[in-house]
């Protein structure tokens, strides 16, 4: 088997005395779309944030594309990575947030061009071309020079996806990308994500959109209380949950 894009082995994370992740084990293969579902407070966002080291894990192993996240192993010793290295690795992972988090003082195009130019040091011309192409791809070719507050939520989220894609990531993390959207705007965003999946992007998606999980997801995990309760093929898990907790959760959201 090829190196998994994401490999979690016994990942633990606590905030003070609150143990939020209590041993997460999972593997995401390249080109795979993994959907994570679960009740509020189960640690889904926290796990996602651990993957690009926005949070430090306390125990276990977490690696992306065969390299430990935030640490370097040398023999049997583990060293913390310097800030610069952590940043370099984050640059290879795209992340999309529930609340978009576009930079309000920059136009759509500037939002997209900022990181490729300043973090990766790519030439402006090239980045601009790519930026415009990405905006066209998410259906916003006419919103190039518009500030985020002049965009609808769905448009903002699509710019945010384009911004993450501009870094040409090998992995995309989505944290409830449609939860803050009006129902009629959800479709546009899901369409963009569906397109990405078809193009072979490796994706980890925290979502409450069971339809999307069923249709686009290659696998699905159900998290509760900081552990994975159940996992498998989305169609199977959603149609035929094995655990009582999964059943009661799904009966509420479906």
């Amino acid at each position, binding site marked *: 088997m090829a190196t998994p894009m994401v490999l979690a082995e016994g990942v633990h994370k606590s905030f003070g005395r609150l143990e939020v992740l209590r041993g997460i084990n999972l593997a995401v293969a390249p080109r795979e779309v993994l959907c994570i579902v679960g009740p509020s407070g189960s640690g889904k966002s926290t796990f996602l944030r651990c993957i*690009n080291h*926005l949070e430090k894990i306390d125990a276990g192993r977490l690696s992306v594309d065969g390299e430990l996240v935030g640490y370097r192993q040398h023999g049997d010793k583990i060293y913390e990575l310097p*800030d*610069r290295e952590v*940043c*370099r*690795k*984050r*640059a*290879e*992972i*795209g*992340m999309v*947030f529930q*609340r978009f*988090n*576009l*930079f*309000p*003082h*920059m*136009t759509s195009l500037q939002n997209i061009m*900022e*990181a490729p130019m*300043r*973090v*990766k040091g790519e030439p402006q011309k090239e980045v601009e071309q790519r930026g415009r192409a990405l905006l066209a791809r998410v259906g916003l070719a006419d919103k190039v020079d518009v*500030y*985020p*507050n*002049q965009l609808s939520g769905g448009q903002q989220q699509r710019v*945010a996806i384009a*911004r*993450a894609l501009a*870094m040409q990531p090998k992995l995309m993390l989505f944290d409830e990308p449609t939860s803050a959207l009006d129902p009629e705007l959800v479709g546009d965003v899901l369409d963009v994500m569906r397109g990405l999946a078809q193009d072979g992007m490796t994706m980890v998606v925290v979502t409450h959109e069971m339809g999307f999980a069923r249709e686009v997801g290659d696998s699905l995990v159900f998290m509760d209380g900081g552990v994975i309760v159940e996992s498998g093929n989305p169609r199977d898990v959603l149609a035929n949950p094995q655990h009582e907790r999964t059943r009661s959760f799904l009966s509420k959201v479906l």
Partner: protein
Amino acid sequence: MSEPIVSSARSRPEAIQAIPLRHPWRWIAAVLVLALAAAALYTFAAAPGLDWRVVGQYLFFPQVLHGVLVTLELTAIAMAIGVALGALLAVMRLSPNPVVSTVSWFYIWFFRGTPVLVQLFFWYNLALILPHLSIGIPFTHIEWIGTTNQIISPFLAAILGLGLNEAAYMSEVVRAGIISVEQGQTEAAQALGMTRMRVMRRIVLPQAMRVILPPTGNETISMLKTSSLAYITTVNELFYVTTQISNANFSIVELLIVASIWYLAMTSLLTFGQYYLERYFARGASRQLPPTPLQRFRRLLFHFHDPPPVGPFEPLATSASHHDDRVM
């Protein structure tokens, strides 16, 4: 029931042409206030002991003009120190390193807790306790030595007193600005691979500016006036110059008026500049930029009866728009 109340899009109802409500009391109040103001002004303007010719004579006196220049210089340099050091202190204050943040806390505690006048006097009299100043590199023989009175000129004493004090205030302003930027902004920037420094410079500070700028404008205007306290360091700023002149010719009030006219002119100019700076940093924060003073003025002349603009025209719900209204 045959006439629909809500007409279709095609047949737009006629615009309302009502006779405007009269406000007699508004007119009476306006006249009363104007009369009182005129009376007060006249009392001062026509005061028997006041010689307006002296005011005119000294308004553009070379020494006075030079004083104006020095005041502007003092203000600019002291504010530059205040903003730069203040930003540094703010970042230190927010540092995860407890030693660093405590040092910042003590600085602010000390400089905010003692009067500027005292601080100015302290720097001016530094030579009393430290007759010589030397800067050297430890363990080498490289060293610069000078008498304190040579190094700390009246101008430098004024700069130090005003600038170091201002830094304490500015650091709180900058800190409030940084805190006002949503945590999600930092996260999104970090997720894109930006280093802490770059996140601060490119993402957080530009957004913090909207919150930082209005109080900084106030601080600058306040500094322009506070710089008059520097007269005790015998630096040739506007107030010192005018007092020196009135000490010689005894036209005390006339020269106070000269100074006031200049201070007013300078603060007015600053207010104007501040307005445009705020407009610049409001981009992206509001859907529609606030009108410029010129646009407002036109509005006042030609559209007096239109309702005042609401909603999108009030972009900075913070103190920004408030003191704009006050002065513009």
